[in-house]
């Protein structure tokens, strides 16, 4: 008996194909039995989130095995898959998610920022499910600077405030350095004239928040990076989103000391704290060395 629906397609196929290969991806082989189990877990996981038959679940993924897991997982549950173009930008995504009333989206970790920015305009979207480890960031002397925070969750009333206050700290600092009319987009980037000058991502682990932000003080030589990195076009496109920099806007760039001073002053004011320059403690230093060697070895 062959399947009459996409709901049972994978289990029927697994029944006859068993250990035969279903998917080939970067040297890996995924069998029909494995695919059957994985898609069952996706279906069950979605059901656990409260997704029901007929609910819409969006997929924004390139051709990776997770697309197939997500697609047939959604089918097994009898929900409606809404796969859409990974090249879409903010307002295109907002339109689709609102039009179909998607309750969940399964997408790449890289697009967390993008989804953060649109989520407040998509009231139906309850669940953001991220996959793939394709984050990509470039740093260059005199071009990029980073501001990171590792803080207790009690510092901010909620995640929105963590984004907003970090955004304001960076806006103040930019102002101090001569960039007047930059603006912070809810849960997203800081832009000037529509072009990105800084990015903010807030992550959580246990009772901690980890905030990562990168600011551009001068224009990137982005081509050098793409000579050595292979990424799919949708990721490249997001990385290449029009950017600007302090240099481009003000005609000069601050040195590191001036930048530190501006950020530290604004952080003290916005957070109501006293900042004191300090070193890592012994245990932290050990962890730091370990992480460094690990990240260069991988």
């Amino acid at each position: 008996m062959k399947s009459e629906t996409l709901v049972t397609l994978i289990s029927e196929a697994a029944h006859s194909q068993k250990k035969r290969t279903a998917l080939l991806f970067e040297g890996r082989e995924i069998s029909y039995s494995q695919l059957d189990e994985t898609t069952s877990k996706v279906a069950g996981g979605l059901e656990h989130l409260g997704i029901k038959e007929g609910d819409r679940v969006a997929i924004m993924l390139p051709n990776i095995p997770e697309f197939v897991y997500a697609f047939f997982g959604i089918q097994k549950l009898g929900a409606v898959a809404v796969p859409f173009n990974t090249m879409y930008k903010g307002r295109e995504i907002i339109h689709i998610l609102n039009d179909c009333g998607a309750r969940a989206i399964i997408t790449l970790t890289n697009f967390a920022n993008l989804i953060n920015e649109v989520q407040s305009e998509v009231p139906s979207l309850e669940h953001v499910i991220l996959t793939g480890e394709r984050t990509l960031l470039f740093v260059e002397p005199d071009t990029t600077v980073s501001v990171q925070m590792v803080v207790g969750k009690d510092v901010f009333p909620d995640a929105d405030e963590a984004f907003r206050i970090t955004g304001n700290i960076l806006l103040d600092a930019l102002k101090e350095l001569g960039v007047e009319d930059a603006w912070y987009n809810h849960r997203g980037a800081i832009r000037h004239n529509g072009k990105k000058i800084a990015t903010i991502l807030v992550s959580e682990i246990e009772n901690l928040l980890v905030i990562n932000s990168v600011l551009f003080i001068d224009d990137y030589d982005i081509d050098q990076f793409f000579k050595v990195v292979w990424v799919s076009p949708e990721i490249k496109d997001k990385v290449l989103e029009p950017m600007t920099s302090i240099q481009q806007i003000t005609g000069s760039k601050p040195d590191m000391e001036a930048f530190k001073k501006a950020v530290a002053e604004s952080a003290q004011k916005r957070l109501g704290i006293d900042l004191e320059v300090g070193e890592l403690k012994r245990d932290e230093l050990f962890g730091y060395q370990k992480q460094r060697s690990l990240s260069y070895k991988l």
Partner: protein
Amino acid sequence: MAEKWRLVYNPEGDAADMIAFPSALVEGRIAGKYMLSSESLPNTLIIQGFKRAGIIAGADVNIDKEAAKKQDLDVAKSARSGRGAPKSVGSMSLSDMMAKGSRKFKPKDVDPDKPAVLLYTSGTTGKPKGVILSHRNFITQAVEISDHYFKMDHKDTVIGVLPLFHVYGLANGLVPSMYFGCRLSLVPQYSPHHLLSNIEAVKATVLIAVPSMYMHLIQLARMRKSKIPKTMRISVSGGAPMPLKTLQEFEEVFETQISEGYGLTETTSAVCLNQSGKAYKEGSIGPPAPVIEMKVVDDDGKDLPNGEVGEIIIKGKVVTQGYWNMPEESAETIKDGWLHTGDLGYRDEDGFFFITDRKKDLIIRGGFNISPREVEELIYTHPKVQDVAVIGVPDKREREVVKAFVVTKEGEELSERDVLDFCVQNLAPYKVPKAIEFRESLPKNATGKILRKELRAGFVDDRLINKEDTKEAAE
């Protein structure tokens, strides 16, 4: 008294520091919590500059380490994060979600006519519309169309290079491959070289692609001369017509036969096939599949005889039940089960169909529909734009590209760069105009409707195979 925070200042950092500082601090605080360490670690702000250029990349990013060395770039990779790694607030990881599901999940019992998928496609009305495709639509495409033309089974290896979010890759690639137990090789990033080496590596027997990919493969093969993979038993092309010369050269070099398909998102992909070596006519989209009814009608919906040009309409189990939440548009497009394609064409005496023009204002680029209205509406929101019109024009290689005619507001200055930047920020790359022309005003009719035809001097439809072209190609 204000709370004391620590400032870690690292003006001469590198790529690895971006990962190592926060991870070390997180690890310290979490371990401290469990060890009830007396020395509590403070909230910390880290400010870093960089003394070397570098890349910080997730575990799945492919990096050419040799090239990085040559470019003098550091490469810092994050460890593969298991469960419990930091995650973007308000999100969860797919693996965490799956951990709550069981591998014994029993598939639900669903009516085959219920919606399975919504695929968004641009029409003439501006914003993309959600085409409702049911289980039956997909299964019909796999069993009664794909399988009718080429039997696929577990011995086949299919190349999955077309995006799975597009109807063609989904309904002709993924679904039939899984239905018939094939091996599907997923190619997430298209480059001609990538595709060719994948075909070689997996010994592909089925290639489902678009004409530009076939052209690229030929170009690569010409340079290679030797070691051309000749395992492909089935090659399917769609999304745009393929010049006869390309088709013939590809068939010769790769020792395969190409079938050209025609279909729409609204028909769950293919409804006709022009099969080289079998039922093939140059410039035709082929006869419809046996389970498909297809005819040509005039503006009043009356059937037209062979050879007369009218709108092509389609009926069959692959036709959508309509657009999501758009009853009016649905009723306008599907009448008595007949899908009105908006494509103009004729049928010859042998039952082969030919497309001659497009009824709707639609730009089609590499198989993706682009609504001129959508692009216009976006550009119109630019504060310095007075008026705008968008049309499709042929590029050097006669493919359709987006062109915008812009009227700048009085007293304002607007450059091509400004308009392009604005589009790049807000539109998927394939919708971004390739050309901007500034005009004093736009041609309009009495009711203020823009006369696109007047802007379209020299316009050529991307999906038409010109008789002249094919003649030239054959010579």
